């Protein structure tokens, strides 16, 4: 069976319905040309997302921020108070600190690729810190602000263990097979995935479509790690 290139692209972009996605996935298992086309499209998305991610992690220049400071003339004392409160809210400071930290982390490793991805056997697989996070990190104990946040762990219809993840440059779903963690879904990093939620390609929906049974609870996740995700 041959697939329209536009349909393959739409599949990779999360723009096809679940039934079509499953039909394409089944076909890709035995159709090497289709699997390679999917991998090529994913690789491009990853490369672009990784290339531009550091821009969103840079501190915003003061001259742009300054344009948005105190532009409105409000007469309401309550609103002014609320604004003062927001300005010093700890959560707000935390976000600023986190974005600075991220900028620094990326800035300090200019030689390292922005996304931990490699190609193996024509498939995109996790490497470096992303592979380490998928191998070792548990959703229950990963702390408040890990570099790679593990979302759901679950078994897919082919019996593989899959884990969704969110990173600064790249988010997606990795499934454990002979190649390591094959990246079955990839979207841009955290900032892009926030918008994905509103679109048709949310990772949670993708995970739900791939899942056989329920997502792992903390005990099942720990047990799966102890078995080496086999």
């Amino acid at each position, binding site marked *: 069976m041959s697939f329209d290139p536009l349909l393959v692209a739409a599949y990779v972009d999360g723009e096809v319905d679940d039934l079509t996605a499953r039909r394409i996935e089944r076909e890709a298992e035995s159709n090497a040309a289709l699997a390679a086309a999917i*991998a090529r499209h994913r690789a491009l998305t990853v490369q672009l997302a990784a290339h531009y991610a550091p821009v969103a992690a840079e501190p*915003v220049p003061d001259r*742009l921020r300054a344009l948005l400071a105190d*532009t*409105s003339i409000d007469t309401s004392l309550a609103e002014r108070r609320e*604004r003062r409160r927001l300005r010093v809210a700890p959560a707000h400071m935390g976000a600023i600190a986190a974005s600075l930290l991220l900028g620094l982390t990326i800035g300090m490793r200019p030689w390292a690729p922005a996304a931990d991805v490699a*190609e193996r056997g024509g498939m995109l697989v996790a490497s470096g810190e992303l592979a380490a996070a998928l191998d070792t990190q548990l959703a229950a104990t990963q702390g408040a602000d890990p570099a790679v946040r593990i979302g759901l762990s679950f078994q897919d219809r082919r019996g593989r263990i899959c884990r969704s993840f969110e990173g600064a440059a790249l988010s997606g779903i990795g499934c454990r097979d002979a190649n390591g963690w094959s990246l079955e879904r990839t979207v841009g990093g955290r*900032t892009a995935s926030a*918008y994905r939620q509103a679109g048709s390609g949310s990772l949670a929906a993708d995970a739900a479509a791939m899942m056989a049974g329920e997502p792992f609870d903390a005990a099942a996740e720990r047990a799966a790690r102890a078995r080496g995700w086999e």
Partner: protein
Amino acid sequence: MRFEEELIELLPRLRRFARGLTHSTADADDLCQAAIERALKSRGQWQDGTRLDSWMYRITRNLWIDERRAAGRRGVHEVIDEGVMQIAGDGAAEVEAGALRGDVDGAMARLPDEQREVVMLVLVEGYAYREAAEILDVPIGTVTSRLARGRDTLMQLLGEAA
């Protein structure tokens, strides 16, 4: 949340989008500045409860297109545009595969504006086709065909896997 605060939260992503459109840090921040000023001036046109991000992306993109047209009239981009026509037109297949391996900026710079903006919105900013079509004010079919052409050229220029 206040209009200005929502805008501040958007700035990191808006700068990324602008960087992709302009492929220059200085031009991107000038573009962001112009977009913010336009947004503050036209804030009456933004309806509370609708998505501020789509509105801001649309303003940014329209300002960039205006700028490119004005520069074209001044003759600034004529030489570059000729190069773009040669590479991104029918001759895309003739470009040596992987000629720009790893040079994402160089490859993006060779796309026509209307393909580059779709590539940025869908592949980098993560918008759904429908959302990108709304931002650009074009039919969804236009988004998919421009995206396909842009992708083909990028894959050709950048070579195989990332």
